């Protein structure tokens, strides 16, 4: 996919040679030379990875602002880059990490996160897909009689998307952004409490062996629970069907995908939208060509090549290139669910404090009963206080 795009870029820009480095763990490949001062011109690397290279550079103010890329016209077309990107994708903390309106990450491939289930099981049992959490708990009790648990999760890492969506559903997008920018007391507010209590309740409906398998070695066993009809819902992203493509499954299995049900009665459900980012290191040598390359990513030519490998960019009209399961995944927002984007605001590093560890990692302790929801909430607020102090 990338080689094709690079070839197309080189064709349209005579005299330009793009050196491509692709690796599953690209951090390990490029960071040694970066430490030595030799920086790549453009990097496609999402936030939220274990090595956190993108976050590290952000926290160190080592990225180039992309403001003028957005003003550039897409090479070979006469539209500006910012007009081609779907509205909403450029004003989130996942593109403007400092929350100051300046874009540093170009939004690339996106995929909605939600709850996966076996649609076949619902047909077989005659259940309705729940749309509120009340219906959810009722379904949990019904299913428990059949020996099926309501919920499982691959690892606690997936609770970032889950909590983001429930936070936004509980208090709206302003509230969500306040949470992400560590506003004082926000995690102890009424809306946040709703989310903590919700997860606390969900923990009681979680499949018994989930915690034991919620690690990098065994998370597929938790995902397998959905395929074996041992648990109903599992939070995940659109890559799940691909990841489990070769796994054995119950008869009549059919993937179903839905947004997180509304937290407030009558409110909208939410789905967190996860996307990968592309950025230019401030120390890059060929900055002009780097910007040109980033702008080119949004051309129809490039988008078609990406879409062939189901890498979907937030470009208006891109869903026309889709079919099958993918059409269902990307139509999640057509049913009234709100898209939630972004993530925690960048701060200077705070030694020993990791928000995602506190917010998501603790879920294992809630499910196993080692910590109470109140302790968890207090710990999150405490981490939030420390991180707020480090915001610039």
């Amino acid at each position, binding site marked *: 996919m990338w080689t094709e795009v690079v070839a197309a870029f080189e064709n349209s820009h005579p005299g330009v040679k793009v050196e491509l480095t692709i690796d599953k763990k690209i951090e390990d490949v490029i*960071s040694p030379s*970066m*430490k030595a001062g030799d920086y790549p011109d453009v990097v496609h690397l999402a936030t939220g990875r*274990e*090595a*956190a*290279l993108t*976050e*590290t*550079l952000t*926290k*160190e*103010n*080592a990225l180039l602002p992309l403001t003028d890329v957005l003003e550039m016209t897409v090479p070979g077309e006469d539209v500006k880059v910012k007009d081609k990107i779907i509205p909403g994708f450029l004003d989130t903390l996942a593109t403007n990490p400092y929350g100051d309106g300046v874009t540093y990450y170009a939004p690339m491939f996106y995929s909605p996160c939600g709850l996966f289930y076996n649609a076949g099981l619902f047909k077989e049992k005659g259940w309705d897909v729940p749309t509120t959490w009340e219906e959810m708990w009722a379904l949990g009790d019904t299913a428990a009689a059949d020996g099926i648990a309501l919920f499982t999760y691959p*690892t*606690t890492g997936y609770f970032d998307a889950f909590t983001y969506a429930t936070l936004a559903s509980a208090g709206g997008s302003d509230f969500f952004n306040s949470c992400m920018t560590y506003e004082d007391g926000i995690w102890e507010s009424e809306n946040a409490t709703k989310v903590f209590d919700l997860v606390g309740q969900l923990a009681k409906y979680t499949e*018994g*062996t*989930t*915690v*034991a*398998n*919620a*690690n*990098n*070695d*065994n998370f597929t*066993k938790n995902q397998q629970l959905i395929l074996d009809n041992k648990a109903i819902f599992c939070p995940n992203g659109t890559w799940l069907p691909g990841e489990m493509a070769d796994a054995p499954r119950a008869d009549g299995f059919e993937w179903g995908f839905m947004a997180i049900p509304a937290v407030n009665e009558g409110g909208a459900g939410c789905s967190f939208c996860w996307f990968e980012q592309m950025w230019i290191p401030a120390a890059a040598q060929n900055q002009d060509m780097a910007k040109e390359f980033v702008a080119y990513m949004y051309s129809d030519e490039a988008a078609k090549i990406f879409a062939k490998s189901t890498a979907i960019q937030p470009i208006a009209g891109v869903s026309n290139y889709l079919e099958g399961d993918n059409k269902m995944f990307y139509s999640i927002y057509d049913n009234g669910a709100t898209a939630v984007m972004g993530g925690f605001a960048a701060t200077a*590093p*705070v*030694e*020993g*404090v*990791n928000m995602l*560890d506190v917010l998501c*990692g*603790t*879920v*294992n*302790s809630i499910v*196993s009963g*080692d*910590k109470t929801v109140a302790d968890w909430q207090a710990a999150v607020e405490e981490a939030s206080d420390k991180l707020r102090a480090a915001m610039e």
Partner: protein
Amino acid sequence: MNVKKGKARSVFIGVCVAPAVILFIIFMLIPTFNVFKMSLYKWGGYSNNKEFVGLNNFKILIEDMNFFRSFQNTVLLIVCVTIVTMALALIFAAILSREEIKGQNFFRIVFYIPNILSVVVISAIFSAIYDPNNGLLNSIIGIFRGSEKTPILWLGDQKLVIYSLVIAMIWQAIGYYMVMYMASMASVPESLYESANLEGAGRIQQFFSITLPLIWTNVRTTLTFFVISSINLSFLFVKALTSGGPDGATEVFLSYMYKQAYTNSSYGYGMAIGVVVFLFSFGLSALVNFATKREPLEF
């Protein structure tokens, strides 16, 4: 004439050891020095924004409860793994080198195999053994306590999970130490055992009065190995088997250091942890070495 010869000799020795000394300086001394230096900075690891903060990283460290938990876990691992592995390795080594049993070579190989497996493979094996529903361990226990009861979550129960790691590490380490002990047991002269036999000493008494004292220097050396390898290997096992979870219950020194230095973008803080680990393992090895000092026996 003699002076000249002596000088040539020194030059020759100097040339011979120079490569090793240079490599040692470049790859050992300088990096170690850098770890100490970096622990005094607030730095993300990549950019040029290094800020000298003195001992601030250490100040944060002594209030960091997560660090203390990883400290506790590491100490627990070192103690449990060392005691059990050493005991079992000594027993197996004594049996395999002193007793005549069928299939001796077969057992030697079987015991050593875990040591040549990569930690990732061992983790996969133990993941399967610890599987809550279909795992070897729960299936065997299920025979005695009834299979309807809720399964034991070897990797999910925060009080159990560290011992699950201990078991995997012992299984991995026994073969290596067994071979080391066997090698030194082989050099104990047979005549000592013959005379002990004539004087009516039993096998167990022979082991404690002859074998153990005579391989004592070797046992002492392995104690230092235990300290170092427990710290190093626990990182690999944690990375592959539990990722430090559930909720940090199996975080050890190096996994916590990695998490802070990379995932949490505080490289300087990670290096401060590195300094503590360095001093701790150095100190512990010295302590162990001092405590086990005996007059070496000649034979």
